[in-house]
């Protein structure tokens, strides 16, 4: 690893969105819609330009270099000496480009989508704030600063999910609380790491941790990595802490696109990729990560099959795709996981924005059962949506194919992987294909099932919304070509780019081109099967799904109700916690603290109630008191002699 090259412009990247926040907070109301529509996307666009410039600078340097900038010392407390410092190496370059680029597109989209919302300015304030926090997260040179960004995006997630809080803010609360549980794990991992880094001052920068990693006892490393992974399950919505993400669909759709598809939820994956040198030292944790990822992928896919709300399907799809990313990093294929992160940002962001376009055109309707035949009304939305669907289902030639395929291949062949993991992933891929094509067919094909009145108003979305769709569609198509398999075209340039930072992809246990092609064929096959079944169910025989649901009612109800996980959590954890906190509130807060404060006031009042009787209003009595006092003083002096 080459030493980092110091530069002085990295601070611009997060600073521009921060400026956007300040602008919106102080001048937004007065400056008006048009100004905010220019400034907020503009600052993110500016951040992207700065990031692109940094990327070109990085490319000019030898592989494995990094650009670094140290802003100022932040924590100086004994052995803990943490700086606010930014770093762009291959990994964070990818992340920062994705965050700022996709973020910019979503900002532009929001200009159109949120146009009629009375809280327009507040929305962009939060959106810029989120972008700032996310950029801090990916640019951070050290783990505590990463955590600052981590918390920041959690906060903004709460603010944005609960954006329409006058309607209902409980989804935002749920997101925040569940995230906090994960964050507790993260913090414990962080403390444990700091504790075990040995003597001397520590900045907890990634370079430093990498240098000291081998000195930490094996069991401790496992504990640290597992705890950090708990944080990742919260932030990136894996089992068991995924429950907030489907509910988060209560927020505006561009928010779902940005936060819950392209950026925030990927923070967990990024964190593990960043700390890969720790994870490779703890095979147990890797196994846990991979297993949880694979199980989540399958679990969420099954739920997504049956949902009727378009956004809920996409939400569960996100959880499932995140599972793939964790599966990737869990088997040691760090660059594959990051690759899928990038392509997922493209196509899932596009899917959400497309869904937003549909919802916008349908006047707010989100139930797919009331949609249908929309391809005639919203052609641009339709074609971009098709591109995204092809990408996510892994149809060859599109972005998702390359990234998902690589993960599955690594799951099968890596020393950390196994056949079973591959199988879970493959089945999930088939389900993914099915539910995505189901969504496509239900929404865009067939008879339009909307009311007369709604149907008259269906229109294609304005340019502010369709332009980002088109850009993302292009990326969804071509984005995968940076990472084609080894022997094709120019090989996996993406992995090569990331290799100095993330290490080489694991040595395949059962190598060989034949196995690889076999696996590739298998994933294409399941994708096509999914397509076929969906076609059958929703185009050819529309009555079939209902019939099957009726036939297998028990199973259907179970899955449709998300396996009752929320209800179970409520019963097991939520109710008792609420009861405990209510009791604590009553006992301590109201009883003791309020009692002390109010009691003090009452005591003072009672005391003065006693003494006020001295004020009789009778001046002569006052004079008598004065005389008495004067005599007492004189007496004292007299008797002193």
């Amino acid at each position, binding site marked *: 690893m080459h030493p980092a090259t110091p530069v002085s412009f990295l601070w611009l990247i997060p600073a521009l969105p921060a400026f956007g926040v300040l602008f919106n907070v102080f001048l937004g109301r007065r400056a008006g819609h048009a100004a905010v529509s220019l400034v907020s996307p503009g600052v993110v666009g500016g951040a992207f330009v700065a990031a692109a410039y940094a990327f070109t600078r990085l490319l000019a340097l030898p592989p494995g270099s990094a650009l670094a900038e140290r802003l100022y010392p932040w924590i100086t407390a004994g052995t803990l000496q943490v700086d606010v410092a930014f770093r762009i190496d291959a990994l964070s370059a990818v992340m920062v480009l994705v965050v700022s680029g996709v973020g910019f597109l979503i900002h532009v989209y929001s200009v159109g989508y949120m146009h009629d919302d009375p809280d327009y300015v507040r929305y962009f304030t939060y959106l810029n704030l989120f972008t700032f926090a996310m950029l801090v997260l990916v640019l951070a040179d050290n783990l505590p600063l990463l955590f600052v960004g981590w918390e920041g995006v959690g906060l903004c997630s709460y603010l944005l999910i609960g954006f329409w809080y006058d309607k209902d803010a409980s989804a935002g609360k749920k997101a925040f609380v569940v995230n906090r549980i994960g964050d507790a794990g993260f913090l414990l991992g962080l403390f444990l790491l700091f504790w075990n880094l040995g003597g001397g001052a520590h900045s907890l920068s990634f370079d430093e941790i990498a240098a000291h990693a081998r000195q930490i006892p094996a069991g401790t490393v496992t504990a640290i990595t597992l705890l950090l992974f708990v944080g990742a399950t919260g932030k990136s919505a894996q089992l068991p802490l995924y429950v907030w993400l489907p509910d988060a669909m209560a927020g505006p759709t561009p928010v779902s696109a940005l936060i819950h598809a392209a950026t925030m939820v990927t923070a967990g994956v990024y964190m593990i990729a960043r700390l890969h040198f720790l994870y490779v030292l703890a095979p147990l944790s890797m196994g846990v990560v991979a297993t949880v990822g694979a199980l989540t992928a399958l679990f969420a896919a099954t739920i997504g099959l049956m949902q009727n709300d378009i956004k809920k399907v996409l939400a569960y799809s996100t959880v499932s795709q995140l599972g793939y990313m964790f599966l990737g990093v869990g088997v040691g294929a760090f660059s594959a996981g990051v690759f899928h992160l990038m392509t997922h940002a493209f196509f899932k962001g596009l899917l959400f924005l497309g869904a937003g376009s549909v919802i916008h055109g349908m006047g707010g309707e989100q139930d797919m059962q009331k949609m249908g035949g929309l391809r005639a009304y919203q052609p641009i939305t339709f074609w971009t949506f098709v591109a995204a669907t092809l990408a996510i289902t892994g149809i060859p030639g599109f972005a998702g194919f390359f990234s998902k395929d690589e993960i599955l291949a690594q799951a099968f062949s890596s020393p950390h992987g196994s056949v079973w993991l591959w199988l879970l992933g493959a089945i999930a891929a088939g389900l993914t294909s099915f539910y995505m094509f189901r969504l496509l067919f239900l929404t865009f094909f067939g008879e339009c099932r909307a009311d007369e009145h709604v149907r008259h108003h269906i229109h294609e979305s304005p340019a502010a919304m369709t332009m980002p769709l088109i850009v993302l569609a292009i990326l969804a198509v071509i984005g995968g070509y940076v990472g084609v398999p080894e022997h094709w075209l120019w090989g996996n340039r993406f992995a090569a780019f990331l290799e100095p930072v993330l290490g080489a992809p694991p040595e395949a246990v059962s190598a060989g081109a034949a196995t690889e092609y076999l696996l590739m064929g298998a994933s294409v096959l399941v994708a096509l099967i999914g397509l076929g079944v969906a076609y059958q169910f929703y185009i050819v025989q529309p009555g079939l799904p209902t019939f099957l649901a009726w036939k297998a009612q028990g199973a259907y109800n179970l899955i449709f109700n998300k396996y009752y996980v929320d209800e179970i959590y409520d019963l097991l954890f939520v109710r008792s916690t609420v009861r405990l906190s209510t009791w604590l509130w009553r006992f301590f807060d109201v009883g003791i603290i309020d009692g002390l404060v109010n009691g003090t006031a009452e005591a003072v009042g009672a005391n003065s109630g006693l003494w*006020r*009787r*001295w*004020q*009789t*209003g*009778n*001046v*002569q009595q006052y*004079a*008598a008191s004065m*005389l008495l006092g004067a005599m007492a003083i004189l007496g004292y002096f007299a008797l002193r002699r």
Partner: protein
Amino acid sequence: MSAVPVEWFLVLAALLFTIGAVGVLVRRNIIVIFMCIELMLNAVNLVFVAFSRQLHSMDGQVVVFFVMTVAAAEAAVGLAIIIAAFRNRETVNADELNLLRW
């Protein structure tokens, strides 16, 4: 001038002062109370003049000068207050002017 010792004057002044103080505490009419206050001030004046004579220093008489001035000012303002109070309450009875009561 001759052999009247200064203590006699002081005792006289003390007596005068006491009479004034008792008057302040006992009378009901505010104006009379005020007059008793003037009595007390005069007792103090007597002490100053007596000591001035005792110490052969003019400073005591200067102080008496000031006391008189201040007493004049105080009487003026005090009587103005009494007039204002009388206008409000139609009484100069100290017992009835007890608005500052708790």
